[in-house]
């Protein structure tokens, strides 16, 4: 067994440190805290997409059994962060970004919260929703993305990039041009977004809130309500998935705070599943056009990548939709153009693999199309245009082991069985196809603070204000600390999910492991140095030694060159008359420029699927997911994350689409029945493989994230395999039998 296999085997035998809590139902999610005298808040939603509310009659709702208050624009207390008056704004206040809930009578999207009913029970609150009567002045909304994007006057925020010559691909010996369309996708984590808010007096606020960054929510609330940060505590113990939806603070959070203050009781708001489609963001609708050309040997001559994605009318949301074409492959002539299209919808938000997930669908589909025209194997085509340096920044990639991924994936999926001509391979009457695609995402390392408390019994407690939405951060951080300190996992306790802990980043952009992991390493190193200093000062056997002569492992301080000279941590703290060592450190991030490297994670997905030629039914038979994400901290949880990304990608390719009535602006499939996410029986067996080479330019940890790359490229690998099976190219997601030419 080689080192990799030994490591994989050992982590596969470990269990998630928070596992028992989750499988016994003891783990508490944000809505599951019970406070004395708690009231329930439910939103009344707008029944139009655009216009103003002429009048709202709340009298019947107020008279309904158990209703305590109905809060709306006429009676909503003044919120410092809601004021648009910048000149008189106190220093500790920032203007709320986006829709100011319960603030005004303007309707910006269908299903906008226009009033909050607060009652003693959930049943009484729900019963009063239909008693609120709103009269509207309606304006016809602009909803139809496909139509409106054609009108250039509707576009905004256009951003152009060019290196070499523009539209150079048109002069290449072989080129293709194609358009790609991806509808709105909705995160739909299983846990509904929820907030419980409780005030102590006028200026102390505690909220239990679902988000991906308790620190971020704390700052947002402090600045909205004009409170000192220390007076706002955000508790986010467990997060039931988020995938990006928790990266900002949505209406439920300030609404619960407003209501709790107004009625002087704790208030809980839990969104409904339909509200999860309108109130917490989504992956924007995108249209892309790619032109790509190569010489006859397959060397890329030019890439032009144009993209439009929607935002709301009241806020800009930009995605790095076309950026991937600038840096994934060596190509001298690249031009990209990106614009936003504002619609009368709520504001989008990053969703797993933001930008690149949509961008790679277009680029990796286009490369596949080009490969058939060139009659070059799609993997070969990618290898021919491989780049060691990031062609956009001209910085070398800190590591780029894509070629290892290609080699492993080809072997594992059985690439040699693939037919070079589409539609030729058959099995039991089904058409068989093979496809692959690359995924890439930035791998940054940011700022994080960690407190470490080493107790005299040898246990180590680590604390930081981050949240764990499911990837297994708690487990990975525990492992990093246990390895560094050379102590068993059980001796490490990693605490998170509380803004009163030292500040940490929001969990997003695949940056948690590298960022917080580096801070954990620094904290452990600092503790070790403190121990060494104490040993030199208090333990006679280490007198006259220097810290470099000493090492700390397995709860002992000992000499590097003589392990017989040692003292236990317990004994050392005793003679030093200390009950513990308690330190807080901050690990700083580094930009690519400071590093002089471009840092990215890469993935390559291989797919084998079968298509029934009679009705277009598709069975994805096998997926091989390979990734280059530096050193893997925990194979078990990283593998699970990769498998989960494939499931997300299958949803993107096969079924996920928020459908709109373009006349009213209402989502017509806002439920888990209408919006189909992949189920057990729709998931292919997935093999996972990691390059698992530490990226030394990322610091001692050598690890990069896998959260985004696990999904990026999956959809293109599926449509590419579909083309290989049938000769039919689907450029507009999701794939449906109709798009393959079959009747519904």
């Amino acid at each position, binding site marked *: 067994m080689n080192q990799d296999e030994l490591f994989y085997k050992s982590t596969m035998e470990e269990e998630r440190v928070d596992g028992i809590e989750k499988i016994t139902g003891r783990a508490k999610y944000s809505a599951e805290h019970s406070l004395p005298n708690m009231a329930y808040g439910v939103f009344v939603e707008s029944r139009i997409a655009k216009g103003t509310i002429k009048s709202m009659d709340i009298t019947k709702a107020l008279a309904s059994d158990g209703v305590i208050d109905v809060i709306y624009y006429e009676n909503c207390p003044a919120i410092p962060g809601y004021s648009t008056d910048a000149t008189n704004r106190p220093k500790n206040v920032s203007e709320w970004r986006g829709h100011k809930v319960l603030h005004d009578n303007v309707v910006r999207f269908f299903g906008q919260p226009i009033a909050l009913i607060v009652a003693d029970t959930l049943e009484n609150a729900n019963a009063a929703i239909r008693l609120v009567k709103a009269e509207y002045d309606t304006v016809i909304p602009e909803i139809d993305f496909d139509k409106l994007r054609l009108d250039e006057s509707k576009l905004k925020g256009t951003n152009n990039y060019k290196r070499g010559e523009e539209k150079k691909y048109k002069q290449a010996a072989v080129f293709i041009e194609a358009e790609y369309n991806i509808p709105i996708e909705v995160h739909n984590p299983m846990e509904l977004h929820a907030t419980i808010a409780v005030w102590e007096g006028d200026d102390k606020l505690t909220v239990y809130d679902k988000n991906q960054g308790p620190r971020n929510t704390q700052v947002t609330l402090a600045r909205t309500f004009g409170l000192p940060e220390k007076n706002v505590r955000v508790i986010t113990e467990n997060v039931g998935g988020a995938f990006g939806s928790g990266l900002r603070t949505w209406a439920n959070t300030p609404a619960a705070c407003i209501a709790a203050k107004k009625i002087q009781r704790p208030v809980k708001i839990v969104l409904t599943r339909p509200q999860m489609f309108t109130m917490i963001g989504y992956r924007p609708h995108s249209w892309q056009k790619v032109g790509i050309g190569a010489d006859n040997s397959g060397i890329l001559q030019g890439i032009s990548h144009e993209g439009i994605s929607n935002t709301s009318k009241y806020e800009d949301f930009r995605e790095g939709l076309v950026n991937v074409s600038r840096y994934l492959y060596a190509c001298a002539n690249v031009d990209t153009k990106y614009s936003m299209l504002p619609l009368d919808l709520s504001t989008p938000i990053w969703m797993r693999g933001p930008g690149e997930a949509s961008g790679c669908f277009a680029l990796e589909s286009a490369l596949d199309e080009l490969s058939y025209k060139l009659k070059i194997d799609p993997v070969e085509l990618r290898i021919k245009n491989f780049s060691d340096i990031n062609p956009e920044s001209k910085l070398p990639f800190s590591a780029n082991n894509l070629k290892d991924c290609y080699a492993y994936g080809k072997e594992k999926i059985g690439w040699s069985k693939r037919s070079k001509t589409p539609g030729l391979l058959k099995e039991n009457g089904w058409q068989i196809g093979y496809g692959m695609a690359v995924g890439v995402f930035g791998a940054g390392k940011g700022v994080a603070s960690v407190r470490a408390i080493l107790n005299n019994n040898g246990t180590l407690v680590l604390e930081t204000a981050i949240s764990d939405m499911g990837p297994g951060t708690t487990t990975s951080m525990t492992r990093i600390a246990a390895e560094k300190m050379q102590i068993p996992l059980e001796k490490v306790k990693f605490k998170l999910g509380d803004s009163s802990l030292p500040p940490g980043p929001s969990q997003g952009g695949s940056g948690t492991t590298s960022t917080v992991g580096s801070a954990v390493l620094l904290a452990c190193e600092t503790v070790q140095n403190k121990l060494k200093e104490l040993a030199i000062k208090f333990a006679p056997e280490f007198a006259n030694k220097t810290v470099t002569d000493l090492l700390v492992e397995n709860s002992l301080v000992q000499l590097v060159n003589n392990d017989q000279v040692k003292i236990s941590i317990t004994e050392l703290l005793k003679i030093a008359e200390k009950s513990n060592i308690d330190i807080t450190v901050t690990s700083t991030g580094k930009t690519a420029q400071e590093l002089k490297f471009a840092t990215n994670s890469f993935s390559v997905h291989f797919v084998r699927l079968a298509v029934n030629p009679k009705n277009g039914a598709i069975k994805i038979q096998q997926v091989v997911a390979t990734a280059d994400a530096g050193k893997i901290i925990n194979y078990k949880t990283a593998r699970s994350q990769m498998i989960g990304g494939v499931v997300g990608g299958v949803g993107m390719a096969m079924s996920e689409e928020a459908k709109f009535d373009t006349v009213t602006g209402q989502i017509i499939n806002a*439920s888990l029945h209408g919006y189909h996410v992949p189920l057990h029986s729709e998931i292919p067996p997935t093999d996972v493989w990691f390059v698992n080479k530490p990226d030394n330019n990322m610091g001692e940890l050598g690890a990069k994230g896998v959260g985004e790359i696990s999904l990026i490229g999956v959809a293109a690998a599926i449509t590419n395999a579909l083309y290989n099976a049938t000769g039919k190219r689907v450029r507009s997601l999701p794939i449906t039998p109709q798009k393959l030419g079959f009747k519904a």
Partner: protein
Amino acid sequence: MKRCAISDTRRGFIIKSASIAALYLTPSILVKAYATESVIPLPIPKEKLQLTINGKLFNLEVDARTSLLNLLREEIGYTGTKKGCEMGQCGACIVHVNGKRTNSCLSLAVTNEKLSVTTIEGLANGEALHPMQEAFLKNDSFQCGYCTPGQIMSAVTCVREGKAKTKASIKNYMDSNICRCGAYQNIVDAIYEVAQSGKKI
């Protein structure tokens, strides 16, 4: 046998519970398509309810509109049973009622009179985990953990009902339970492992 204080006859009870169910369990998206109501509904009196939860007898007074899910989570504090959609579409709220798996969000609490409910909190025997829980831990069959209680409750009846003989039949049975993190493969592995072990669960 007196079923419930809400009406004298079983038929009356069915009619009333059905209309309550129609009002309160209809997906809100449909309800809201109708015009707003002009009449303030009368306060709903509490109903007596006796049922067993995880082996413990409860004598309760509950709002007739309360779902079994909200009774467990909001009234009793058994928050292990999760709320994911309240439309019976996701399976996060699945519990066992007299041994049968049930979407607790679609079951009015008062319809569970004299019945026996088992939730995720009642599956382990004290600190000793249920074999299905152990298999979920070992196979890393969850990430965020939110759908997990529902998956485990379904998984247990999947094996008990003899639907876990092949991975394909497990998948079909488990289509009732959505996992958005995408732990499906590891969930099926766990169920298959428990089924193959032949342990009586």
